């Protein structure tokens, strides 16, 4: 902090000296009698004062602060009405300002040795060029001079050739550094956006390029062409530099401002979390807080050793993928959740910013999601049990029909041959009895197979099977008022069928006069109502199916009605 204060103080003193020195002068920059360039300069200068306040390291703060303060120097102090000393000083500042801009634009951070090397080289070149211009070069001594020919009052030694060479070399180093900075910056922008250039990255890069072209370009141009307020090349470079500086400074602010805003919202979010939001809504709250409408929150389910979504469904393991980044959140060393968010959000700082309350809320949601996952597993396991029982029924039915029954029919055919070929009366009588017994056996077998599993259920669906239940009833009139006509999962079709068959059995045992069935598919579930006029306590067979209905997340209710019993069945059927 002391360093920052010292640098700020020094910069303020410099500005004050410069302001005093130029106070008596009319404004003599590109402004001339126009106001637009002055406004540009003012905006850029103010904008450049902002990034230092967000700098993370002391060195970067120094660079940004000096850049901000030195920024207007070449423009305001360098013109014809100022004293010769100030003009020389201002002209010498030109490569330094360009070099500071290069260092400011270079990708920051200690992990980038190439950027550091470029920064050092550029600063060395700038100070070399500035020093040479200040003390070694006097254009007035140059017999060939016909351009930048003001007398240098600060001249120490008139080493014209050596000074000129140092000036050119230093400026070249700054210009080379500017090109390298833009290149390094563009590579980083491409890498951080996962190979695709995003609009924000391109904008920052364009601003930086404009800033560096304006400053370094002007430094180079000054070696060749005398600076004049009405020279189109200088005016163009001036405008580029001001616009680039303002744009770059504002884009540098974007990330810290966003981080600050994120902190504010997370803080508010923590408050909201303390007032316990509805279960499962934390992801929605985070999406709003982080302004990321497709943000995903996945929770670690310890029992299953995998990540699940807030509803407990298995999720693809969180990892960085195209355009998304993943931040893992842990609590007391245990994984809690994974946030899959936009790459513009810095994962490490997001993790830092999450408050204790939010972490606790995430842990609560994690518990809930993990429980839901367990529940879902339990449900699907009971569905599988129902399905397996159903498959077993079908297998038995098929074995009876395609095995035993085929053999019995073959046997009947053989007996028939016997009948035709035999002439013995006794043998014919026996064969006729055998034929009768075989036919009875086939009929019996058919009835048994049908009781195990009605083939019409898988061939024709629920409607056909219920129709057949009604058609085969000889003692109890069964009226089908309406029947769901669609095809559903085997487990669902079989369960509905079994409930209807059980209700028919109960109605028969209670000597009901009729059974009425009303059914429909509504809102992803089958709704059936079975009414019969026998006592409610006789509904034994239906009640036995309660577990099977529950296994499929359905509800089975048996109630007393005004004229007997009513069975309500609701079975989810969304496939």
């Amino acid at each position, binding site marked *: 902090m002391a360093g920052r204060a010292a640098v700020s103080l020094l910069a303020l003193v410099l500005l004050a000296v410069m302001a005093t020195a130029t106070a008596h002068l009319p404004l003599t920059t590109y402004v001339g009698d126009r106001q637009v360039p002055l406004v540009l300069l003012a905006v850029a200068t103010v904008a450049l004062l902002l990034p230092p306040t967000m700098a993370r390291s002391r060195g970067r703060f120094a660079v940004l602060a000096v850049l901000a303060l030195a920024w207007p120097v070449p423009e305001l102090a360098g013109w014809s009405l100022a004293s010769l000393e100030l003009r020389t000083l201002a002209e010498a500042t030109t490569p330094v300002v360009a070099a500071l801009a290069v260092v400011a634009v270079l990708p920051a951070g200690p992990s980038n040795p190439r950027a550091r090397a470029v920064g050092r080289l550029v600063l060395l070149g700038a100070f070399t060029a500035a020093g040479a211009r200040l003390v070694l070069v006097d254009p007035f001594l140059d017999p060939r001079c016909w351009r930048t020919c003001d007398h240098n009052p600060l001249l120490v030694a008139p080493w014209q050739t050596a000074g000129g060479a140092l000036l050119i070399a230093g400026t070249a180093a700054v210009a080379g550094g500017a090109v390298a900075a833009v290149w390094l910056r563009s590579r980083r922008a491409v890498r951080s956006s996962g190979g695709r250039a995003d609009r924000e990255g391109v904008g920052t890069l364009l601003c930086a390029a404009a800033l560096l072209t304006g400053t370094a370009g002007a430094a180079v141009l000054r070696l060749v062409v005398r600076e004049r307020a009405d020279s189109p090349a200088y005016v163009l470079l001036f405008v580029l530099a001001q616009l680039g500086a303002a744009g770059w400074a504002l884009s540098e602010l974007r990330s810290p401002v966003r981080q600050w805003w994120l902190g504010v919202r997370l803080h508010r979010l923590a408050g909201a979390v303390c007032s316990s939001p509805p279960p499962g809504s934390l992801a929605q709250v985070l999406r709003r807080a982080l302004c990321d409408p497709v943000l995903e929150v996945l929770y670690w389910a310890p029992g299953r050793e995998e990540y699940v979504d807030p509803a407990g469904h298995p999720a693809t393991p969180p990892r960085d993928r195209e355009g998304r980044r993943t931040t893992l959140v842990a609590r007391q060393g245990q994984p809690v959740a994974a946030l899959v968010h936009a790459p513009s959000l810095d994962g490490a700082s997001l993790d830092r910013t999450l408050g204790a309350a939010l972490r606790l809320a995430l842990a609560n949601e994690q518990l809930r999601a993990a429980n839901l996952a367990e529940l879902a597993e339990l449900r699907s396991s009971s569905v599988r049990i129902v399905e397996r029982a159903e498959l077993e029924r079908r297998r038995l039915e098929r074995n009876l*029909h*395609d095995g035993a029954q085929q053999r019995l029919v073959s046997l009947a*055919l053989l007996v028939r041959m016997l009948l035709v070929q035999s002439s013995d009366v006794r043998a014919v009588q026996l064969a006729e009895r055998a034929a009768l017994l075989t036919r009875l056996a086939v009929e019996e077998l058919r009835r048994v197979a049908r009781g195990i599993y009605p083939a019409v259920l898988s*061939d024709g669906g629920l409607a056909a099977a219920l129709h*057949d239940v009604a*058609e085969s009833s*000889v*003692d109890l009139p069964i009226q089908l008022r309406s029947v769901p006509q669609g095809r559903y999962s085997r487990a669902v079709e079989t369960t509905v069928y079994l409930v209807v068959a059980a209700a028919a059995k109960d109605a028969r045992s209670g000597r009901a006069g009729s059974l009425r069935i009303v059914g429909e598919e509504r809102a992803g579930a089958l709704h059936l109502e079975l009414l019969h006029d026998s006592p409610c306590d006789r509904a034994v067979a239906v009640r036995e199916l309660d577990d099977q209905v529950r296994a499929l997340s359905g509800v089975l209710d048996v109630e007393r009605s005004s004229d007997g019993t009513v069975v309500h069945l609701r079975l989810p059927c969304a496939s």
Partner: protein
Amino acid sequence: MRVLIADDTALIRSGVTRLLQESGIDTVGEAGDAGQLLALVRATRPDAVVVDIRMPPTHTDEGLVAARTIRRQHPGVAVLLLSQYLDSSYAMRLLQDGTAGVGYLMKDEVARASTLSDALHRVVSGECVVDPAIVRRLLGRARGQNPLDALSAREREVLALMAEGHTNGALCRLLSLSPKTVESHVGHVFSKLGLLDEGDGHRRVLAVLAHLRQDGSG
């Protein structure tokens, strides 16, 4: 008469073949599954095919599907479907494309004397055959308000025979009645059931079966 037999059990195929031989009906080919059957129909152009409803690969209703395909692609080939199912819904599925030259017979009836050959003769001559067991089941089911109660015993007989696919001529023969009497019985049945008299045509079977399949609850 030239007949094709399709069943996945060889024992049944040979049994049925011999049974038909006794009745003077030639078997021109045997198929073990639906694909083989369709190829044989194209190759041999039989008068009729006898198809088991359950055939490989799923053993559910492959035979029914094959029978309907044959009716569509070869209208000149009569089809007799042998089934294990009493459910009228299977018979309705077979008959819905047209009833002429189509039959639905319970499989365990094939061993009965002359049942199979009679049915074959009827479908080859363009009639419709529905197994009496299925009609009995439809007539015998419990109903709330039973419109069949209004019919006399003779009229119920006439209704059953119509549902089995018999023509008026066959009714005269089977019931030993004069054509005029049969026509008057048929007229009574239709008016008592509130049905439109479709005449002696092929639509009559479907109309009668559809009426019988209703549960009578109005």
